[in-house]
């Protein structure tokens, strides 16, 4: 009897301990990824009716991102032209992504932040870097902080190293990389996922050099990204292949999905896409295996209701050691270290470090004296000595 009781107590104790450690594990799960909020910047850079598919691309990503939880206040949607109300649109107020008008990605609740001629390289870079005039409304700002995961999706016409905006200007991969570096230095993102669907899209992420950026592109340098299918009723191609298959992939995702980035990299193989999609993860600190799709595409708030007490102790520092081994060994940068304020405040006066070499001065003055004496005769020498 006593043995059974003690055995039961032991069992209960073990269960309790197991439960408690289970909750502890769950709590540690909260800190698996470093972000607390999500933002999305979705840019369509082409205007004119025959670039319908670029607007449809952007709107389908917008739709997925909203469906997975990112609110409009955290989405900056830039559409260079209005396809829904274009006079050539036989179905006004709609933008379809599948032929036979199966899916209208332009619903009642589409909020376009930068529209038509406001989509310029300058505005795009200002949104990214935050250098916006004070009069800009909140909906047009990217108010991210250092715990934000940002999804940046760009589509349009591009080439090797550039992306064309509005048929009149370009943004180069170098500018983009520098803009991201500015974002990193201002701590405007925790992690960044950059997706681009243009011709030779891989050239746009070649120059990135800031940490925590993962990039996907629809085609390699030298390849064109192709469009998917035209709708004979509307008369234009509705979507690009890569984004079409990404949309189909994202339709399977729901906020609790555990699908990771490696699955996204497999989307649209060459057989379906004709071009070879590329991706770049060398700047990213976590293994893509451990990165959930919803880390970028959704705004998943980790909320668990429990009545257990969980001690958040310093042991969580041990969590850092449990990170996968392929983490980049970067030392954590403190904010204060990056601005040499002391140097700026106490500006030292300009030091003239350069002096002409002695040989030069000697030679020059020797020449001048020689010329002087040659002209005026040696007889002046005796006045000097």
């Amino acid at each position: 009897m006593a043995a059974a009781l003690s055995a039961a107590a032991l069992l209960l104790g073990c269960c309790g301990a197991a439960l408690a450690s289970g909750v502890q594990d769950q709590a540690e799960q909260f800190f698996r990824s470093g972000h607390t909020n999500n933002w999305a910047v979705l840019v369509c850079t082409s205007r004119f009716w025959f670039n319908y598919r670029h607007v449809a691309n952007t709107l389908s990503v917008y739709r997925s991102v909203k469906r997975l939880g990112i609110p409009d206040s955290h989405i900056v949607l830039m559409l260079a032209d209005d396809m829904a109300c274009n006079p050539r649109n036989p179905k006004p107020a709609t933008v379809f992504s599948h032929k036979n008008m199966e899916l209208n990605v332009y619903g009642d609740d589409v909020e376009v932040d930068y529209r038509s001629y406001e989509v310029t390289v300058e505005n795009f870079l200002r949104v990214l870097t935050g250098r916006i005039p004070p009069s800009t409304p909140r909906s047009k700002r990217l108010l991210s902080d250092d715990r934000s995961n940002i999804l940046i999706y760009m589509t349009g016409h591009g080439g090797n190293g550039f992306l064309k905006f509005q048929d009149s200007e370009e943004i180069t991969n170098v500018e983009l990389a520098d803009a991201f570096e500015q974002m990193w230095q201002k701590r405007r993102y925790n992690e960044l996922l950059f997706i681009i669907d243009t011709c030779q899209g891989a050239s746009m992420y070649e120059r990135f050099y800031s940490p925590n950026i993962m990039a996907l592109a629809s085609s390699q340098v030298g390849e064109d990204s192709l469009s998917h299918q035209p709708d004979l009723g509307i008369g234009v191609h509705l979507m690009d292949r890569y984004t079409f298959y990404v949309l189909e992939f994202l339709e399977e995702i729901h906020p609790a999905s555990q699908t990771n980035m490696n699955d996204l990299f497999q989307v649209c193989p060459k057989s379906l896409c004709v071009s070879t999609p590329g991706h770049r993860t060398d700047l990213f600190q976590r293994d893509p295996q451990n990165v959930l799709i919803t880390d970028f595409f959704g705004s998943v708030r980790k909320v668990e209701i429990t009545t257990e007490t969980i001690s958040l102790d310093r042991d969580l520092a041990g969590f850092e050691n449990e990170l996968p081994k392929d983490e980049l060994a970067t030392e954590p940068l403190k904010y204060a270290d990056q601005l040499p304020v002391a140097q700026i405040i106490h500006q030292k006066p300009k030091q003239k470090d350069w002096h002409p070499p002695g040989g030069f001065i000697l030679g020059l003055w020797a020449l001048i004296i020689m010329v002087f004496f040659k002209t005026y005769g040696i007889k002046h020498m005796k006045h000097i000595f």
Partner: protein
Amino acid sequence: MAAPLVLVVLVAVTLRAALYRSSLAAFISERVEVASPLSAWKRVVEGLALLDLGVSPYSGAIFHETPLIIYLFHFLIEYAELVFMITDVLTAVALYLAIQDYNKVVFKKQKLLIELDKYAPDVAELIRTPMEMHYIPLKVALFYLLNPYTVMSCVAKSTCAINNTVIAFFILATIKGSAFLSAVFLALATYQSLYPVTLFAPALLYLLQRQFIPIKPKSKSFWLYTMQYAALYLCSLVVIICLSFFLLNSWDFIPSVYGFILSVPDLTPNIGLFWYFFAEMFEHFSLFFVCVFQINVFFYTIPLAVKLKEHPVFFMFVQLAIISIFKSYPTVGDVALYMAFLPVWSHLYRFLRNIFILSCVLIVCSLLFPVLWHLWIYAGSANSNFYYAITLTFNIGQVSRETRRTFTSC
């Protein structure tokens, strides 16, 4: 004559000092007519700042001054205004002394020719008297110092003033007859801005005349003297260039200075003729046209030497004018230098045709330059053609003036 000269110098220095303190100084330094990529003060300061940061000033296309200017301003940069005022004064004094000596030579020659009865009887009005020639050097100094172009160049701190000083010293040395000093200063002038090499011919002619060596290709003494002078000149040039090497221990300055002058890569508008052509030219042809344009500067030397061998100083004046019209980056400072010589041949003015029109062209164009610049760049209602038209007119006026003067003097 010293007192009036001192007075003129004082007035000029006061004027410049007053302008330095006024708000016009900043405005004038920005004007493209006054500051070219070769002579802008901003670029000198930039180059010296780069040097302090440990970077060669010739890396990048900002700084196009010679190493001797680097050396000069390294120590004198805080006194830059004084330096430029002193250079202007030195130029004026050098021109004054040069023209004084030249007038003596002219008068002696005239006396000789009168005694030899070489003049026709009705030339009586043209005979130059010591009275009228007495004030010419002062007028030259006055013309140089109080010329608005010179004042603007000085206030803008354009290194064109230093080029002018070197050329003025060269003219002084030539007229005084010292071949050695003349060669040294000519080498310095060439080293500073390539084009004074064309002044070799008039200087040689003058020195030969002074030595009474006849200019005949068969004469041995002619060739001997020419060789001597050329050797002096080339040796000094080589010595100066090698010395400049030792300033920064690199030959970078040669493409930056001479390559820049010759290949004209910077097409900022100025009062010259190069920028407009090359701005709208296809790359394919630019080498050819650069050669054509540059030859234009050097081309007139031989014909003028043949024609004007009796009047080498006038030849020098015309050559200076040609340099300042056809050089790749002219500024009004270059124009001011040759304009200073106008009083020397004032006796020819009664024969100059179209004086009124040509002087009006000069004044009107000078006034229109800033107006059309404003209209083009700031108001946006004109374009580069307008500014270029005024440039063309200005240069045509200058060329016309020179040709008429040449015809009257021959």
